[in-house]
């Protein structure tokens, strides 16, 4: 039984792959069956990732982790999957968002184009793989898997705006992937390894010449990841693309920009930790400044947005900027609260993306973009379905309430988790260096406060135009299946506040483990034990 649990680590990658493959064989018309398979897969994924989270939580910080050696090759030679607190947290977040967006899509979006469910599962597979892998080149492969799926999701639903945004999105991401390849191969050329733990352990032994080459490699890799995370000035594509994507796709993209942040956090704390000698803390200032500029850019964007989808896209930037800047601060307790912020803002942004489309229906029920694309696609059974949609009583109240909750969450006001996260980050920064707070920390505290205010102003303004000053009196048709994921995501954020103590403790020990990269290195490189137990399990 214990060996079975060892194999659970690979389930988040293999399961979506299998279900995507099965769905490819099914006819396009059997959407409800596909939807059922999709929901079942994501629910199993959530259960598995919760079990993995519990497993990861049992690890003592800085001493070890669980690995899964693919093909049973020992660590530096084969590819390893690594489960620690950080990757388990991201897995849970991915599967939560997966269930929410998939449920939402079942209401109508999955009919707006072919092969939605297959692409969606591949996207989950790519995300999970990228979070689990401990190998640089394998990370590239999973990046490509999830990007290929995301290209499909961006274009899902068709239409001029999506194709135009998709074109820019694909070009930008292909370029970022090429940078990724250059960086990864340069790192290989210098250190002779692609395993992240092995790479980190070889840094202290590098000659100064090689060390500067590795710094170049890290800078190139960092550029590629910052592009994904949406850091200024590499983020002009992001609001347009996210605003153009269909609601469930955009909700999934909320975690894709966090993937860039995740990789930076993982690689940076591992490779340029205190043991790295001359390279220790390389590029931290760049992360800090880049992050702060991103907050400013996102803030201006939020204030200037004239449509809700764009506002949601710009709040992705604010959230990414906050995280990148907090990582650049490089202090353990700041990173702990930043992880809390990561979870809470991802939930908030995903809920906002889902909600925005429902609110847009309030504005102009006749000219729904979706209806136009549906017609273009020529799906006749859609109209029938839409009539069934129940105008749930108090629809407006529910929409408005959720909108207020999103605003509170993103602006960082009590009682939702955004407040706890921002408060935690500020408190940690004020305690840095034993009270002698550096200027950069004051600047970041000011920016966090001002960006919260800007978000609040912008959300209030668009809330007023959408709910109080609307032109038509008709109540939009919102199906329960569309409303439920939004409410569930917001309730999760509320739960994060109520369970703030244990959640914060988990984040703190995650940050603690990240600050002690030695634990990761020895955990991965001396993982023969796990391999042996796998071997014994074979007949």
């Amino acid at each position, binding site marked *: 039984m214990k060996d079975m649990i060892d194999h659970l680590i690979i389930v988040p990658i293999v399961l979506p792959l299998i279900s995507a493959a099965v769905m490819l064989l099914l006819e396009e018309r059997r959407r409800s069956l596909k939807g059922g398979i999709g929901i079942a897969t994501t629910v199993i994924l959530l259960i598995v990732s919760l079990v993995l989270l519990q497993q990861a939580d049992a690890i003592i910080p800085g001493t070890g982790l669980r690995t899964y050696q693919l093909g049973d090759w020992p660590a530096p030679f084969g590819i390893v999957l690594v489960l620690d607190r950080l990757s388990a947290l991201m897995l849970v977040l991915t599967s939560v968002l997966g269930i929410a967006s998939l449920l939402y899509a079942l209401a109508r979006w999955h009919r707006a184009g072919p092969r939605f469910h297959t692409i969606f599962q591949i996207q989950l597979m790519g995300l999970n793989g990228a979070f689990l892998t401990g190998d640089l080149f394998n990370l590239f492969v999973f990046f490509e898997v999830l990007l290929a799926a995301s290209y499909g999701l961006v274009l899902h639903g068709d239409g*001029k705006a999506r194709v135009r945004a998709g074109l820019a999105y694909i070009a930008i991401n292909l370029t970022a992937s090429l940078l990724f390849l250059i960086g990864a191969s340069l790192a290989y050329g210098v250190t002779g390894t692609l395993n992240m733990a092995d790479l980190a352990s070889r840094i202290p032994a590098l000659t100064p010449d090689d060390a500067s080459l590795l710094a170049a490699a890290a800078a190139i890799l960092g550029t590629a990841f910052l592009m994904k995370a949406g850091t200024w000035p590499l983020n002009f594509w992001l609001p347009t693309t996210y605003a153009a994507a269909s609601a469930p796709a955009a909700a999934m993209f909320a975690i894709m920009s966090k993937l860039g942040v995740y990789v930076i956090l993982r690689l940076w704390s591992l490779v340029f930790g205190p043991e790295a000698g001359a390279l220790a803390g390389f590029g931290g200032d760049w992360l800090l400044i880049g992050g702060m500029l991103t907050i400013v850019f996102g803030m201006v964007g939020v204030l200037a947005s004239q449509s809700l989808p764009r506002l949601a896209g710009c709040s992705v930037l604010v959230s990414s900027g906050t995280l990148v800047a907090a990582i650049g601060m490089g202090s353990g307790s700041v990173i702990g609260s930043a992880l809390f912020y990561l979870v809470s803002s991802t939930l908030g942004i995903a809920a906002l993306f889902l909600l925005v489309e429902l609110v847009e229906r309030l504005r102009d029920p006749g000219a729904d973009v979706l209806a136009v694309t549906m017609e273009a696609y020529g799906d006749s059974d859609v109209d029938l379905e839409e009539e069934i949609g129940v105008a749930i009583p108090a629809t407006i109240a529910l929409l408005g309430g959720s909108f207020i909750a999103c605003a509170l969450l993103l602006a960082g006001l009590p009682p939702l988790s955004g407040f706890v996260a921002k408060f935690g980050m500020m408190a940690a920064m004020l305690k840095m260096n034993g009270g002698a707070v550096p200027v950069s920390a004051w600047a970041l505290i000011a920016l966090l406060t001002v960006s919260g205010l800007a978000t609040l102003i912008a959300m209030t303004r668009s809330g007023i135009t959408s709910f109080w000053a609307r032109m038509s009196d008709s109540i939009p048709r919102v199906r329960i299946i569309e409303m439920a994921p939004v409410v569930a995501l917001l309730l999760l954020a509320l739960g994060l506040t109520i369970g703030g103590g244990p959640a914060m403790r988990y984040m703190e020990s995650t940050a603690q483990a990240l600050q002690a990269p030695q634990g990761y290195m020895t955990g991965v490189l001396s993982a023969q034990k796990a391999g042996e137990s796998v071997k014994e399990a074979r007949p």
Partner: protein
Amino acid sequence: MMELIFALAIGILTASGVWLLLRPRTFQVIIGLSLVSYAVNLFIFGMGRLRVGAPPVLESTEAIDPTLYADPLPQALVLTAIVISFAMTALFLVVLLASRGLTGTDHVDGREDVR
């Protein structure tokens, strides 16, 4: 000499590719992406050090001198990178055609500059 030619080839391919990437026509962008990806493939290959006449695959299971062999890993990586970039280029080509069909122009912004 070999290294110089190799480096020049990568440099010229990258420079032409980046220039094309920044051009306004979608076809130029796709050719630019292809050129940069060729350059990147050569670069990955070069990261395994350039050797002439050294096989990457071991010929026997006996103990051998690894310095007589070329590094096989970058060659495997190049293969993966080629396949992926080829697939992505094909996908980009489809989107490019869709964009051409929907917007009626091959400008990357989906509309012509107003002069």
